[in-house]
Structures are given as C-alpha cells and as structure tokens.
C-alpha cells in the first residue's frame, strides 16, 4: 500500500479523512459538509481546515439537531449536491433515525429508481476511555440491517482516506464509521487519486489454521491476537472487511474453505450483531468445508459501563479473540 513514488505521507486516521474531504471537495464542487462545530474542525478534528479552504457555503455549521442535519442532507442529495453529514458520536444518529431509515435508505427504491441519494453519514463509534453508555456504542448492526444503506468501517489511515473518497463518489447513502480509538493512529497514506472501492476486503495476515474476520478497531486487537496465537503455534489468517455493505464474501469464503475454522469479531454487542450475519452466511455457504462451528466475539449484552473494570468486562479485546481462536481450534 505504501508507495515509494512520493505520493505517500504519514498521517493520522483523522487527518486522512480531512485529506479525503479536501480532495473530494476540490474535485467536485457539489460536495458540501454539514455538521455541528465543523467550522472549528469537529469533535475529533475530522473537518479541520475545511472552512478556510471552502468557505461557509460548503462547510455548514449546523444547529444541534441531528434530524435536520440528516433531512437537509437528503434534500440536497436528491437535488444535485453530494452532502457529507457529520454526527460526531454515532449515538447522535439515533436522533435522526427516521431521516436515515425512512428517507435516505428508502428513497431510491420507493420512488422506483427515479433518484439516488448520494450522501455520506460520518459518525465516530466505539469505546474510548470511559465515555459511558451514551458515547461508547458501536451501532453498525442497526445500519447493516437496512436495505438501501451501504456501511464501511476502516481500520487504518490509508483505508480511512481511500474509503471516504469511494463513499463520497458513490451514488448511494453510505454510513462511514470511524472508531474513536483509531482516529489518532498514524500510518502511511497514499495521497493521490487513491480509492479503496466499497466491497473490497483486505487480507492482513496469511495463515492456515483459522480465519479471523473483523473490521474497524477490532483489526488492531486481532493483529495482537494473531501474534499471541503464533507463539502458541497457531497461524491465523486475518481479514479486514473494511466494507460491511457491500460485503466482499469472496475473500472471506476463499479463506474459510482453506482453513475450515472461523472467528468473527467486532466491538459491538455480540447478540444480534453483524457478526451473527457473517457467521450464518459463512456457515450457509461453506458448511461442508467447516471443521467447527464459527465462534463470535463481541461485547457482552449491557450498555457500555463507565467504570474501567466494568468497561473491560463488557468490551472485548485481543484476549477474547485469542480465547475464541482456541475454542474454534478445539483447544479449550
């Protein structure tokens, strides 16, 4: 991914998203941004500097009303603009669920394909330092459940930029989930016309004993888990989905049919989560090649608690992935 031709720069995940926004806005003057505090760069600096370059007609400070942010985005999207709506914490999208679910996701289909709704909904999710119940959730399962929405969840700065460019260029509504714990993480980022297409997973590590399928911050936990497993003599293959809808099932299945064992991991609640969809789909498509039932890793079924020991008890990390891998290997 890191090219040597001078088009790669090291930057944080957050800076990579700003860079993608700037690139897209320079390239296409239909792209506008709407959100709370965005003239000041947003809660996580994910819009820093855009006002100076593009001005208040394109970088629009919104009142604290997630419903109007989303409704206005739909209205502009169906009339020729390409809005990027910012919701900072993903929980705030819940105040705009009608606009997301009943409007953005359904417009194209309900109106017989007359219009598309080219908008991006950016939201920060996940657990970060005891932010407690209303600021720690991962809600991708709500969005993946809905026909009409595309959903991406990058795990590193390069993908953050590449996927955001693809999301903005896409003609459908795309929910772009940026995990809070990786927003400040640095990495090499190709800064030219680099795009990561929606629906393309990446194999992060090769291994023959089992396949770990994950995305977002959990990729980092899984990388750590893979090293620990290697010390135990277990070689895991690690797949970073990057895009949940559309889903790159080919990459997943071609790994699973070789390893015969699969762990599906996310930070979101395990019960009824996107991992259940993955486990079920994998089982249905590769049943005769599986040597064990897929094992899921996800948060325990409670709102994320504040106190650090409770937070650790509810939210999964690399230890839980190692335990799941051992379980699927029949080692427990």
């Amino acid at each position, binding site marked *: 991914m890191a090219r040597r031709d001078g088009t790669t720069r090291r930057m944080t995940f957050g800076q990579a998203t700003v860079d993608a926004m700037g690139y897209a806005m320079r390239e296409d003057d239909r792209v506008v941004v709407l959100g*709370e*505090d965005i*003239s*000041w760069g947003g*809660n996580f600096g994910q819009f820093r500097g855009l006002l100076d370059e593009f001005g208040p007609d394109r970088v629009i*400070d*919104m*009142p*604290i*009303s997630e*419903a*109007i942010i989303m409704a206005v985005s739909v209205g502009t999207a169906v009339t020729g603009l390409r809005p990027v709506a910012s919701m900072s914490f993903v*929980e*705030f999208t819940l*105040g705009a669920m009608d606009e997301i679910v009943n409007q953005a996701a359904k417009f194209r289909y309900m109106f017989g394909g007359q219009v598309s709704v080219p908008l991006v909904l950016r939201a920060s999710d996940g657990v970060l*330092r*005891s*932010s*407690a*119940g*209303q*600021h720690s959730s991962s809600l991708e399962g709500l969005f993946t459940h809905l026909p009409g929405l595309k959903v991406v969840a990058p795990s590193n700065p390069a993908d953050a930029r590449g996927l955001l460019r693809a999301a903005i260029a896409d003609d459908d509504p795309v929910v772009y989930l940026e995990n809070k714990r990786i927003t400040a993480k640095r990495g090499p980022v190709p800064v030219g016309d680099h795009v990561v297409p929606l629906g393309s997973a990446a194999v992060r590590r090769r291994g023959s004993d089992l396949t770990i399928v994950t995305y977002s911050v959990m990729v980092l936990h899984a990388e750590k888990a893979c090293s620990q497993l290697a010390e135990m003599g277990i070689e895991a293959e690690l797949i970073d989905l990057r895009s949940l809808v559309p889903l790159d099932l080919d990459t997943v299945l071609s790994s699973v049919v070789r390893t015969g064992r699969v762990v599906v991991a996310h930070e979101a609640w395990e019960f009824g989560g996107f991992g259940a969809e993955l486990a079920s789909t994998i089982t249905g498509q590769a049943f005769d090649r599986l040597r064990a039932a897929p094992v899921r890793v996800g948060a*325990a*079924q*409670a*709102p994320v*608690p*504040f*106190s*650090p*020991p*409770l937070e*650790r*008890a*509810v939210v999964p990390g690399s230890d839980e992935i190692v335990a799941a891998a051992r379980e699927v290997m029949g080692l427990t």
Partner: protein
Amino acid sequence: MSLTDTMSPGMALGIHRTMVRIRVFESRVEELFKAGKLPGFVHTYIGQEAIAAGVCATLNRDDYITSTHRGHGHAVAKGMELGPIMAELYGKATGACRGRGGSMHVADFSVGMLGANGIVAGGLGIAAGAALSARYRGTRQVAVGFFGDGGINKGTFHEALNFAATHRLGVVFVCENNQYAQFTSRLRTTSVEDLSVRAAAYGIPGITVDGNDPAATYRESLEAAGRARDGGGPTLLNMETYRFGGHYVGDAEVYRASAEVEDRRRADPILRWERTLTEEELMTAGLAEAVWAEAEEEVSAAVRFAEESPYPDGGTALENVFTRVP
C-alpha cells in the same frame, strides 16, 4: 425593592452556600481530572451556579429535575450528597450509579434528580413525562428541565414545549444560556437572539433572566414553579450566563477570546452575590469565609470517601440490564 422582599435571609444564605458548594466541588473535579484521577471526561458548571442554586431552592425534595451533560451543579443543588457524586466520577462501586454512569449520568431518583444526560435536550420530554405523571397521580409535583442554548434547536425541545403547553403540564424549562454549544456561538446556529421568544410559538410565558443573579433566578423560578404547581402550565426561562471553563476540562478554547472570558469572570456570580448579601447586611466577611471553608471540608471528605471506596467488580457488569430475567 430590597432583597428580603424576594426571599428570606435564610434562603439568601442557603443559595449562597449551594453556589459555593458547587464551585468548590467543581474546582476540585477539575484538579482531579487534570491529575488523571477521574476516567472519561468532565464538563464543569463553574460560572453558572446561580441557576441551579436559585432554581432548585424553589423546589421541594420530591419535585423533579432533568439535567444535562453539565449536571454536577444540578445534582448538588437538588440535594444529592457529595460523596456518592464524587465516587461516581471516580467510577467507584459506592457512586450514585454504582460506577455505571460517571460524570455525564449522575442521578439520584430519591431526591428527584432524574439524571444528567449525555444527549443534548434529552431530558426535556422526560421532564414533561414526569409532570404528566405527577398530574395523573395528583401529587402537585413540579418538573424542571434544564438544558443549554445549544439544546434549544433540538426537535425534542420544540416537541416537549408543545406537548407540555397543550396539556398545561407543570414543567419549567430552564435554558442555561451560556452563549456557546461546544465551540460554536449560539449566534451562528439559532434563528433568534432572545431565546425566550420561542415560548410564544407554544403560547406559554417566556422570560429572559439574569442567570448570574440568584435573586432573579430564584424569583422567576418561584413564579414559574408556582404556576406549574397550580395547573397554570409550563414556562420557558432563558437564563443568561457564561461558563468560565472550557466545554470540557482540557478544551483549548480556541473559539473564544480570552479577553471575553476574563471580562465574564470579573462578573463572578458568587462574588456578586456575596457583595449583595453584604450590602443587605446578611453576610459578613467572616461568615463568607466559613461557608467556603466548610465547603472545602465537605468536598475533601467526598474525595476521601471516593478514594477509599472499591472499584466495582467486573463480574457484576451484567447486573441491572433488566429488573429480573425470568
């Protein structure tokens, strides 16, 4: 009009004491947070004390309040003990919410504090619901919904006012207009300059109040709460104030001039109230000093309580998801 026409000397001194307790508590919270002792993040109430203290002084113990992300001051003013609030901020098992909620979710239903809330304007409809419940139960309890100038643009604000007004519910909507929502001046996102005019759309009284003058916050709240209790319906109080600190502790505050902050700090509501009380001959320098010293003592005891308390056991993390699982 002399102060004693508005409130009794005991009330005036009581409000002073509440303001000082909030200030000392919040100043200590700021220090503790900077020292890395408190998990998460904290939004302090420093500068806005005259609102919580003045409003809650007009309420009974069983009246209700709903609060915001900036909720410690409301919790103190509504009568929560400092120990369990501080322990909650530490994430300890003895915290008001057993360490589950933290700074943004401090609550004590036994004193009618229905929760600090991390969702802007999230408490307003809930306050209307509490008032509906009080009416149904025939208790004459009043509900106060605190919110910020940022919250006034949320749909839930408008929906709650309409509902409460339509049913003449006993709610007082108290806007703590501290001029900013996070980093954004209210003038950039809000259609009207005087926020109280929004009441007119719902046919209820809307009053702009000097939110840094306890005599004013108390007087207007007393009238609004009285009307609410007597079936006269809701009121919108736009209480003008200013937060002395950043949006959260650690905020670089690039969005406002330090001269503006300095200027506002000079009009400190507590010092101003002390001057008023002194002029009215209700307070001496010695008495003021004793109140501050006592608050320091009480906050230190709360910190000791929190520090000596255990963290919750990770094994209890799944308790209280439901009342009972059959």
